[in-house]
């Protein structure tokens, strides 16, 4: 059984990360943006796991758990913000949240 080379995983990770970035920049719906962030985090997770596997070290795996925990916390806070936003603006468009500026 042949082993899939690490570069494949990394390419997939980069592709997913790029997808997340593009979605983050171009989408206006805050929930979509939220999903884009999750996508980027998981792309990074994939890279960590691939490296950990390639180098046979646990560090990468440990880091993945940290990222998952942070992502969960972030989701909790983020969804609270989304709700507050939906209540006050009756909209999920982030471009309408632009009061804090020069």
């Amino acid at each position, binding site marked *: 059984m042949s082993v899939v080379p690490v570069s494949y995983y990394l390419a997939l990770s980069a592709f997913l990360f790029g997808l997340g970035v593009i979605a*983050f920049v171009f989408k206006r719906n805050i929930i979509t*943006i939220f999903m884009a962030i999750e996508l980027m985090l998981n792309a990074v997770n994939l890279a960590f796991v691939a490296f950990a596997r390639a180098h046979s070290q646990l560090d990468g795996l440990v880091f993945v758990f940290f990222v998952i925990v942070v992502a969960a916390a972030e989701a909790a806070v983020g969804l609270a913000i989304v709700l507050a936003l939906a209540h006050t603006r009756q909209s999920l468009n*982030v*471009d309408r*949240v632009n*009061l804090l*500026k*020069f």
Partner: protein
Amino acid sequence: MLILDQLWIILALPLLGSAINGIFGLWLGSRWSNSTVNTVGVGSVGLSFLCVLEAVREFLQVPADQIPVFHDYFTWMIAGPFRAGFALQVDQLSVVMLLIVTGVGLLVHIFSVGYMAHEGGYYRFFSYLNLFVFFMLTLVLGANLLVTFVGWEGVGLCSYLLIGFWFLKKSAADAGKKAFITTRIGDMGFMVGILLVFATFNTVDYRGIFSTLAQRNVPVETHLGVITAICLLLFAGAIGKSAQLPLYVWLPDAMEGPTPVSALIHAATMVTAGVYMVARMNPLYARSPIAMLVVAIIGGVTAFYAATIGIAQTDIKKVLAYSTVSQLGYMFLACGVGAYSAGIFHLMTHAFFKGLLFLASGSVIHAMGGEQDMLKMGGLRKKIPVTFWTMLIGTIAIAGIPPFAGFFSKDQILFAAWAGPYANKPLYLLGICAAAITSFYMFRLIFLTFFGEPRYDEHHVHVHESPWSMLGPLCILALLSTVGGWFAAPTLWGGEDAFGKFLSPVFAQAAALAPVTEEASHSLELQFSAIAVAVGLIGLLVAWWLYVKNPDLPARIAKSLGGLYTLVYNKYFVDEIYGALIVTPLLWISTNVLWHVVDEGMIDGAVNGAADVAQAAGGEARKLQSGYTRSYATWVIIGAVGFSAVLYGLLRMKQ
């Protein structure tokens, strides 16, 4: 050796008095009552005077080889080879000055109790006056030029504070500033002189300087050299402080201050600091005949010049002020012709009779309810007899009529100018003319004030004799003005010149270096005394003839003299000339160049320019903060990509 070992006590007492009155007066206001101020203010100077008396008693028992008594209390500053300690010393010269400062100072304090009784800021006045005594004592006790300089500047400060005592009056505040700034011009020279002394002798201690001079046997400098330079620079300080030509202009204006201040600071003590300093530095001056000639010329010319201005003044205090300038000129003339002890002797008698004259004029002003114009006085003789008699004694003393104090001191100076080792006959003639004029304007003052018909409104001005706290000091000073001269009565008059003998150790180096002259004969001395008395009497008679016998004549003479009278009446327009030549250009440059161009343009421009650049940059940069989340995300991505690129580049370079 109770006090002599603890010299600092003499200084500390007035300083303590000043601090207590100043702090508690400010803190408690009217609850710090005038009688408490009196107790502290007069008491501290009184105790200081007692300490000086005890110190003098102890000093007279000190063997000659232990003089000067020297105490170095602590190192004040040290830098490389330079060291200056807070050191005090007592020698014969200091003893004389100590007695004058604390003695006359005490009398003026007592006088002020009566004179200032109805003034606001009573505690402030006594606090300043005590502070002045402290600094003056520092000046005369200092054992090196720097400590003396501290006292020198300190008395200048107190002079400024006291001239401007009534600071709400613009003329008083201006006069204070004028005194401070004018003397500062001379002090500049004094400071450079001190530096030059250090550069030359490697020390600023008097003992060190004088012993270096003696050990190296430094010869008399017949050409311009470093000693002449030092002497002239130090003398520049003396010119400012002692109000000589051309920096005398501040002293007449200083009469804006309360009269006791004029008596103590601007007649008896502070203005004589220059004479004290020149006498103190006599081993240097004796080695520079050029500097001595300059001192003598400036002294002699000032004596004559200021006396001529005194003729036409109508303000009673202004007459005395110009008289002070003139008398200080005599003292410098004495130093310049090598008669240091005569100069110091005149300093002492002048402190007595000029202190007396000023205090008496204060009593007259007090009696007249604040009037200072002699043309609005007259006929006061019967109404204020004690003031009249004491002032008359002071006048006779200054006019140089024997046996009063001024005669002996002035006679010694003039005789030294004619026949001394550095005799200068033209200056003698100036001096004797000045003596005649002095006698004239002083008796003019007496006749205008006390004789003739009253020229004031008798219904409104209630002339009254002053209280005894004012008359007491007058009587004591009158007594001193009467007998003070006999301390130095020369052999001709049956004395033994005790004063000169007492001071001679201080002036030993100067005496050894002076050109040898044959002892003047008594008959010559008698002739000169006769001339001096004669000119004094002529002045008296002319004043009597003009102001008592023919009171209408002076106005007619003034009219016939026309321009000359206007010139003298306006003090030769010196203030106006200085104003046009120095003050106006200086103000113009300060305003139009230094202020509007250098300060506003260059300095403010640089600071404001830097701020403007920062503000403009910030104004552009803040536009990045648009408020749109997606724009921030874009910037983050650009940053991340840029960072990655740099990192990648660095890693590549490393390989």
